[in-house]
């Protein structure tokens, strides 16, 4: 067993300190849960701030501009300024909107985006709930985000929003299937859906080396899942203005934004955990490795966004069903045969 360092150590120290002040060990447990929840939410909200800044800097780098450079040193406080601006904005509800559905949509979208963070192994033993169906939980939760998009699109009483909402359902449903099938290869190799087991199985060989096709399929479908370019048909600025978000202003719109970046982080974390060995790595502490790999994946997704044109809806559908799905199925068959041969010879 690897020596326990990093985040879990910090938690142990905190627990010891709390133990001195609180007599009941149950109270300590409750306090520790609250601290864990708090830190996850901190990560989510910090993510949005950092990633928005990063996105603007990365896009500037790719387009040979300087990007934000006025607010704070190197423009680092730009996102904070934007947040303040968004909070001060007037909250406009379109006439004829379905009030409750319209108001609930951004909140409901944020819930699955936040809920998936429960099963992310940030470091050795630093996982909020090490469910034995961790992978399944992630897939189940992330697929919940289809409905809020449709709600927002329908309730806005705007044709652009409606077209955007319909596109979301078509896109997310058809890319969910190859995504699940691509992850299935990993589950077969690791023999478990538990995140910690999957990471532990990659101590020597990252699964990207054993499952390169699955990785490619996963990255493509993940881009489609989080509606980023070249699969950003949901918002497709030049076609349907902003899709389901068209009628949202101020903080409601910011919640969509927050969820979008939380999702971006989520798929990057899953890619890291399932394919890139999670927190495994020499010399550096596990959580540093983890965030380095996640950062690499996030950069990859940003690179896509600022390089590729957008697909058309029919091309998107045919690519998902006619290319990615057979590829993912083929990958499962090859993996199965490979595992059988491997077991036969060893």
């Amino acid at each position, binding site marked *: 067993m690897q020596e326990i360092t990093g985040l879990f150590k910090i938690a142990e120290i905190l627990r010891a300190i709390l133990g001195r002040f609180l007599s009941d060990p149950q109270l300590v447990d409750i306090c520790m849960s609250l601290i864990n929840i708090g830190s996850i939410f901190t990560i989510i909200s910090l993510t949005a701030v950092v990633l928005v800044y990063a996105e603007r800097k990365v896009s500037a780098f790719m387009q040979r*501009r300087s990007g934000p450079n006025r607010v704070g040193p190197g423009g680092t406080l730009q996102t904070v300024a934007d947040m303040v601006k968004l909070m001060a904005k007037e909250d406009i509800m379109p006439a004829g909107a379905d009030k409750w559905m319209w108001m609930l949509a951004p909140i409901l979208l944020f819930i699955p985006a936040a809920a998936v963070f429960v099963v992310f192994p940030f470091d050795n033993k630093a996982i909020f709930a090490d469910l034995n169906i961790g992978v399944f939980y992630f897939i189940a939760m992330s697929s919940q985000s289809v409905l809020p998009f449709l709600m927002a699109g329908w309730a806005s009483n705007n044709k652009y929003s409606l077209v955007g909402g319909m*596109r979301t359902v078509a896109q997310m449903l058809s890319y969910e299937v190859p995504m699940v099938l691509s992850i299935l290869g990993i589950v077969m190799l690791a023999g478990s859906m538990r995140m910690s087991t999957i990471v532990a199985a990659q101590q020597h060989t990252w699964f990207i080396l054993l499952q390169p096709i699955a990785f490619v399929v996963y990255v493509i479908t993940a881009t489609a899942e989080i509606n980023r*370019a070249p699969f950003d048909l949901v918002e497709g600025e*030049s*076609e349907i203005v902003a899709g389901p978000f068209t009628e949202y202003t101020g903080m409601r719109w910011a919640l969509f934004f927050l969820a979008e970046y939380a999702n971006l982080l989520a798929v990057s974390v899953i890619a890291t955990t399932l394919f890139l060995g999670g927190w495994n790595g020499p010399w550096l502490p596990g959580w540093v490795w983890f965030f380095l790999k996640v950062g690499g994946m996030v950069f990859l997704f940003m690179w896509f966004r600022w390089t590729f*044109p*957008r697909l*058309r809806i029919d091309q998107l559908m045919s690519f998902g069903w006619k290319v990615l799905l057979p590829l993912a199925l083929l990958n499962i068959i090859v993996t199965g045969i490979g595992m059988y041969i491997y077991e036969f010879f060893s």
Partner: protein
Amino acid sequence: MLKTETFTLNMGPQHPSTHGVLQVVLELDGETVVQAIPNMGYLHRGIEKLAESRTYAQFIPYTDRLDYVSSMGNNLGYCQTVEKMMDIKVPERAEYLRIIMTELNRIASHLIFMGSLAIDLGASTGMMFGFRSRERILDLFDMVCGARQTYTYIRFGGVSADIPSEFIPALERFLTDFPAMLDEYHRLLTGNEILYHRLKNTGVISAQRAVEIGLTGPALRASGVDYDIRKVEPYGIYDRFDFSVPLGQVGDCWDRYTIRMEEMKQSAGIVAQALSQMPEGTVMASVPKVVKPPAGEVYHSIENPRGELGYYIVSNGGTNPYRLHVRRPSFINLQVLNEACQGLLIGDVVAILATLDSLMGEVDC
């Protein structure tokens, strides 16, 4: 009993990808376009009517505001029309300067086309790159006439001023850098599989239909019709240059895109030839202070980046035109939109609008 019905989507006049204030009334069956009716007139300024109460020289700045991304061509077309009426002979050096400026403007205009096509298809980096290179050309124009967009550089009998000494080295630097820039765009956009599949076989306009509607410029040549006024009816001194006119085969968005990319290369070639042949001398012929063309009418057209730009002037011998009409290629090219869009998807409408490259300043004269 279940039934479906079409719905109307007003794309514009305030929409990210209608390039100004165009409204396209889309009748949609789900995402499929049943009808796409362009609704113009949001930028109408009555320029043709204004001409009747302006002197001939006063009208030159108005031409800048027609196709405002290729103003040099607009100036040239108008000035050559008036020169044709009055039989003014333009000095050699001015002729060469006119060629250099209009061809540079063609490159600048096509760069905007490339950039706006890229961003309409969701690749915003392409737009940034296009505008970056266009900036180099605008700097050159700034040197010769002090303006970046509305030049009024070409006048009756020549050009407003000779080029400054720093112009030629700057232009040579640009011409040296340009092939590398073009190569970069080809690598970023032309080689992109998604872009290819978005543009290939979308918005096909047959050669026959293109001629019937009166398309001109790259939109016509994409359908395979070899019609470039610079070759067919060389105006100015275009017969002295060696350049080829790229032609398409299918008439789809992809052809319209590749033709413009190739035209940029040809234009750079013309500029280089003109620069090497340009003689010294005066840049302005002696033109009467008050321009009073003899009574009569004349039509003259030139090849602007968007197609055949024609000026039709009726003079009654006075100081103002009696009637002035501009044949605006953007306006006429836009008429094909409905036919080209039918049966396609919303995403294709955007691509077709971008490749027809209609500019609202010129559509609404």
